[in-house]
């Protein structure tokens, strides 16, 4: 067998999604933001949505890495900004990409009311149990006892209250169509997360109303662990408090084969 034949027999099995820009991310080594980004970009490619998708970032820098239109909102206000865009351009696909301090703390009112109104938008909620971008402070998702730069002795629930289980909270609102929690800690769960991302966009395409995926994620730098240790910590500590599962699935989505 000569070399030419060998090359011809090779297949491309992995390439950059069209919905990605050709730049390197600024995320820390091991961070699962990159995984979440990639899954979203792959689904947008597969569904052919790139040219009609508008992303809304609330701080963070997600817009640097996706090759479609983006706006950036003030911290926490992404669901309100997405509402403004979707109401004017109802045939576009509007998504927000939000963190936990952002969505579950400063933006708690905006997310609850976007869900209650049944805004036909898709929300990606990265839960890594701390304020990652500002250097690891306590977030509304920080676990009881978890040490952060602003809970140095561990989160004391007597002083700082309890973490918020966002997916469960939003699922009870009648306006939500698809609310699930997935995790990015191993290949099996990453595959399940991708399937959920697909269903969330399917919900929006079908006009079913508010969809949100909470993605349990790691933050090795701020957690003070290696990426491998972080993945184990997520599985051992976060999943018991933030159980994976479907909290709301619109009947129109239940039988969907994807």
């Amino acid at each position: 067998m000569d070399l030419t034949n060998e090359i011809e027999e090779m297949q491309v099995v992995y390439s950059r999604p069209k919905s990605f820009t050709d730049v390197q991310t600024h995320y820390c080594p091991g961070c699962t933001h990159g995984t979440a980004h990639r899954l979203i970009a792959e689904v947008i490619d597969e569904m052919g949505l790139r040219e009609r998708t508008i992303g809304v970032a609330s701080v963070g820098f997600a817009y640097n890495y996706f090759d479609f239109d983006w706006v950036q909102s003030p911290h926490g206000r992404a669901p309100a900004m997405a509402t403004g865009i979707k109401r004017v351009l109802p045939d576009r696909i509007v998504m927000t990409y939000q963190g936990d301090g952002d969505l579950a703390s400063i933006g708690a009112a905006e997310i609850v009311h976007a869900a209650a109104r049944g805004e036909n938008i898709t929300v990606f909620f990265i839960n890594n149990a701390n304020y990652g971008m500002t250097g690891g402070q306590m977030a509304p998702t920080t676990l009881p006892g978890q040490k952060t730069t602003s809970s140095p002795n561990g989160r004391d629930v007597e002083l700082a209250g309890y973490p918020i289980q966002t997916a469960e909270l939003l699922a009870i609102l009648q306006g939500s169509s698809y609310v699930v929690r997935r995790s990015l800690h191993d290949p099996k769960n990453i595959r399940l997360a991708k399937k959920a991302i697909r269903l969330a966009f399917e919900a929006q395409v079908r006009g079913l109303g508010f969809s949100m995926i909470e993605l349990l994620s790691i933050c090795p730098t701020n957690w003070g662990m290696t990426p491998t240790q972080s993945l184990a910590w997520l599985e051992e500590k976060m999943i018991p408090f933030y159980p994976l599962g479907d909290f709301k699935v619109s009947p129109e989505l239940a039988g969907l084969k994807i």
Partner: protein
Amino acid sequence: MTRELMKGNEAVAEAAIRAGLQAYFGYPITPQTELLEWMSRRMPELGRAFVQAESELGAINMVYGAACTGARAMTSSSSPGISLMMEGLSYIAATEVPMVLVDVMRGGPGLGNISPAQADYNQIVHGGGHGDYHPIVLAPASVQESIDLTARAFDLAEKYRAIAVLLTDGNIGQMMEPAELPPMQPVLTKPTSWAVSGASGRERRILTSISLDPPTQERTNIRLQKRWQDVQASEVMYKEYYLDDADFAVIGFGSAGRGALSAVRTARAEGLKVGLLRPITLSPFPTAIVEELTQKLQGMLVVEMNSGQMLDDVRSIVSRRIPVEFYGRMGGMTPLPEEILAEIHRLVTGPLTVNGHPRDRWLERLSSLN
């Protein structure tokens, strides 16, 4: 078209709709609420976007989103609600997307009351949000002028990719007057080089107010400041009354300016050579005409429904070249024409001084009355 009896708030709402408003987002607050209520009925029946937001924070950020698509978008509120919107206003100014804001001012500070005031002058004119930016601020004194300036606000916002504010108050918003609405304009989304709509057949667009690189952010600031110079050069509006032969002038905007006009007319009937300058654009401020008046008048009286917020801008032009006096009412009080007339008499009879601060003299007089 014929003149109809209309309430200020409702007239502004309908004027915005007729100017091609595509998206309205608001939150109830007195004395602005009729505007929201009018929109809640009219916008859906015209197939346009309306949302009663969860808060003023929600409303201004919905406007931000809609404005990023290039649509004509607006919100309205009253003083405490406007304070809540300041975050979004700064972001919108920095992102250089056009929008219209209506502020129907009420008494403050704090929760204050629901009576008319003009104490948002500094918050609006000098930018209550963080950073360097200038909104275009229009101050109507009647229902008709509210209608006319609403349409103008949309045009100016789009021309300069800026925030245009209709700064009215509880008097103008709640009063009913005969006025004429313009005909309905078609809704047009003009193609722009900047709006987001989905990256179909073009490069992606990113609308953001962030720039982590200080030199880049400074260039953005320089662009905003230079654009503001263009606004200052081209968009100043004011009204002059009886100023041709005047020795003294009253300066007041909005409903305080309207009350001052009644007082000036009475003074004229008494044979006093007094005129009125009523700024319509508070930002850009009518600096040139104030300078011109400084050179020919013997004194000025600034009348406002606050503690002399515009007074500071007038004094920065006049300096101590001629005496400037001040009369204001605060906390939801409207100065009546007879009060202003008494101040005109004081101005004309003197003695006047360029020393001290007019606010100190006014406060002493006001304290002795209360």
